[in-house]
């Protein structure tokens, strides 16, 4: 790894490449790219120590547009490739870019295991609830009834909730963001980067061509305040234009519910305080869906454990200090004989 004299701080422009960006005009991917480039600048990333790994899909073209090392792999396999990269060279800062098809359909198993193993990397899942690159077939996150070229009568599968899946897989960091949220997203990504272990960030991304407006219910500026909560550790789960709505746990129903501060004797103090280390709370928060509930963004769960790569390298180091690497001795262990 190489020392870098910090003569000049890099700006997000320094993370742009010479490649022309090839997404459809108006695609949410542009904004995410910008957020990521800003994040890299904010955290003072060293380009040569940063690697972007992706699968296949519109979103997976991402690495070509970030001035770092990059690997555009094959469909669904990015988590496995990224695991290899991180294990081989743990000093690299690894970012993974994937889509709802790439990461949860064909790549579901690798996503499951990279989360379970807790390999240190930032995983950005661009969820547009559609297969963009192959022209609009429904994906495992598409809403039931989606009419697409492969489901002319509407899809009948129950969709997957990416964050719910991630928690079930044992992820130790789960967060959410919105493509166009150019202020909030870099903050969330910075938290993801700070977390040592696999950080899972679902990003709602609008595919303007094949699934335009699928998240409008909670991403539109005019309704956002009433339909989103930005979770902050230690703060109360309050939302609404008037900051008068909040979440409480109803023991009777054994579920979260929305209350209005000032109504029925509800006080601000009654509102649930977000504890990002509490997995049960995380489970409840990720399952809240529009329009009945606000959609929870920001860092929903963060509860670090030793990363897989650290554990592997600790073992390697332990072995190295316990035994000498003497190849001639190795093959002479056990019973040998001399012919003369």
């Amino acid at each position, binding site marked *: 790894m190489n020392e870098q004299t910090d003569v000049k701080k890099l700006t997000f422009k320094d993370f742009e490449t010479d490649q022309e960006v090839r997404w459809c005009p108006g695609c949410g991917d542009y904004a995410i790219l910008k957020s990521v480039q800003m994040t890299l600048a904010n955290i003072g990333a060293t380009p040569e120590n940063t690697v972007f790994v992706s699968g296949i899909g519109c979103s997976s073209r991402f690495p070509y547009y970030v001035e770092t090392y990059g690997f555009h792999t094959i469909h669904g396999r990015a988590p496995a490739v990224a695991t290899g990269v991180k294990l*081989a060279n743990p000093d690299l800062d690894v970012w993974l870019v994937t889509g709802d098809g790439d990461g949860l359909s064909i790549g579901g198993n690798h996503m499951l295991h990279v989360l379970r193993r807790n390999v240190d990397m930032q995983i950005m899942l661009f969820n547009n609830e559609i297969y963009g690159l192959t022209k609009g077939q429904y994906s495992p996150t598409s809403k039931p009834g989606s009419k697409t070229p492969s489901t002319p009568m509407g899809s009948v599968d129950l969709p997957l909730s990416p964050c719910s899946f991630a928690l079930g897989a044992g992820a130790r960091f789960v967060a959410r963001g919105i493509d166009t949220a150019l202020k909030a997203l870099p903050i969330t990504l910075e938290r993801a980067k700070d977390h040592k272990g696999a950080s899972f960030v679902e990003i709602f991304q609008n595919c303007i061509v094949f699934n335009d407006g699928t998240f409008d219910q909670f991403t539109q500026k005019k309704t956002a305040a009433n339909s989103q909560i930005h979770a902050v550790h230690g703060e109360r789960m309050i939302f609404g234009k008037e900051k008068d709505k909040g979440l409480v746990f109803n023991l009777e129903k054994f579920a979260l519910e929305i209350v209005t501060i000032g109504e029925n004797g509800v006080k601000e103090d009654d509102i649930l305080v977000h504890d990002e280390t509490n997995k049960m709370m995380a489970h409840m928060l990720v399952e809240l869906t529009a329009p009945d509930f606000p959609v929870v963004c920001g860092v929903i769960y963060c509860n670090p454990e030793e990363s897989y790569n650290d554990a592997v390298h600790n073992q390697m180091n332990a072995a190295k200090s316990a035994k000498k690497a003497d190849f001639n001795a190795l093959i002479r262990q056990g019973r*040998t004989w001399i012919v003369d």
Partner: protein
Amino acid sequence: MNEQTPAGNFDEMDSVCIRFAGDSGDGMQLTGTQFSVVTALEGSDLSTFPDFPAEIRAPVGTTFGVSAFQINFGSVEVSTAGDEPDVLVAMNPAALKVSLAGLKEGGIIILDEGAFNKRNLDKAGYDSNPLEDNTLDGYQVQKLDITKMTLESVKEFGLGKKDALRSKNMWTLGLVLWMFGRDRKPITDWLEQKFKKIPDVAKANIAAVNAGHAYGETVEVSGELRRYSIGKHEVEEAGEYRTVNGNQALAWGLVAGSQLGDISLMLGSYPITPASTLLHTLSGLKEFGVMTFQAEDEIAAICGAIGASFAGNLGVTSSSGPGIALKTEAIGLAISTELPLIVVDVQRAGPSTGLPTKTEQSDLFQAVWGRNGDSSIVVLATSNPQDCFDVGIEAVRIATKYMTPVMVLSDGYIGNASEPWKLPDINKLEKFPVKHHTDTEDFHPFKRDPETLARPWVKPGTPGLLHRIGGIEKDYDSGHISYDPKNHQLMTDTRAEKIANIANDMPEQSVSLGTEGGKLAVVGWGSTRGAIHQAVKRARAENIDVSHIHIGNIWPLPRNLERLLKSYDKVIVAEMNKGQMNKLLRAEYLLDAYSLTKVTGQPFKITEILDCIREQAGDAS
């Protein structure tokens, strides 16, 4: 030689083949392995063949639960585990039933009479007791109540009956050691070591070995059971030796390669028979900088290895046929991005799940041709345990020098079989230090070395060389994504040429035995090497003009191979599949060879090849 060397009445023999057969729980693999070790230590040449069922522990007494271990050893060069055992040790009726057909006519059978009860006979599917009918006519049968004698011998250690019976194999081993005048000390040493923490078990087992040996010494069998003396094998080279099996040797070869190439090795693997022991061996070598990653599946395993190679380590992945099939798409990524990668295929009998514990060479097509797109890789085949070591090193050298995937074909027979191996001195092997590219001047990720056509290998973390690669077609110069038609032609041609050129960096094809040119040649590859060698040797002794050509480099084929093959009037291609190498040679050289094939999950017998040679030599003359 030590003091216990036989002095008594021994029949001298050049070589002997013994088969230990018993129930999966009878410890036959252990018995065989230990006998091999003693045999090796006393200087015989040897070759072994473990032959066990797919079940972990099939129900006791059934024929499909029989586990066998065959060892062929001699004062002469042995190169196979033997066609027909001279001696069969059968621990129960099922073992007898399964193994009898293979036994040499007039061969010796040592069996545990105590196990031939109604229940076991029924389980083995014997209608009548073979000890009482004429099933065993024509063999020299030793019926011994091994069960009873073992119990007797370990009585004093107060083990339960179940535990006590575990020593049956050691009693038998003691008897066999006596038969061949072999030293017991290595065995008793090993038992002491192994059961250090449970000394009663150690003592009981040692007592059983001694009792079996003593049984031989006593009058009870003298006159009936003869003793054989097998001299030392006059190996050509002096040096230190050990026995090694193929998977172990291949693991060590890969590590040696990583040391010689000064590059860290990262194995991504997923367990599968018969490749798992490669993962096991490498997982115990962390002090050599070898990292192992047991992935969630074969695809993740190879992708992890590719990621490691991208990051600057050497990625290796290992599996067997069905698992290799799953890696097909990802191998394409390594081809397209031109990253070094080693893919080990320890072949087993297919198709599909097939016969997981049986051997076959039927993944040749898959290795050479089994991918979408025009997608050549290097394919090397190992032929025996010691060759595994050399091929391991060569695979590392080629993968890193040419930035290419290399497939190593081994098989279940090589992987499990043990042979003596002259230990190399790593300091005397040629080094080929890998240099990652660091020069920022005029850098393009796909700018090729004009000689090797390899692209530069850059380790992420290096300043000034930032770049992005992927599986989409790339511009020949810049490495950027390119959909240009002419460029795709150029890249496709160049990828193929790069691999073809490697033939110039590999030795020419030699003749293993016999002459360049002549009436007849037998061509083989992989684990058939020993059997073909012996068959050709015997045929030449019969004055048949036949030579043996063993192909180790499958793709690219050796540059002189066509000329060499065409210097014979006739060629036999012998292999354990439906004729895949034969098809490859036809496709490459329009060679009209005779295809000798065997697809039984069992290695070739020498006589099967010898018969074919005789027949074809007759035709050829």
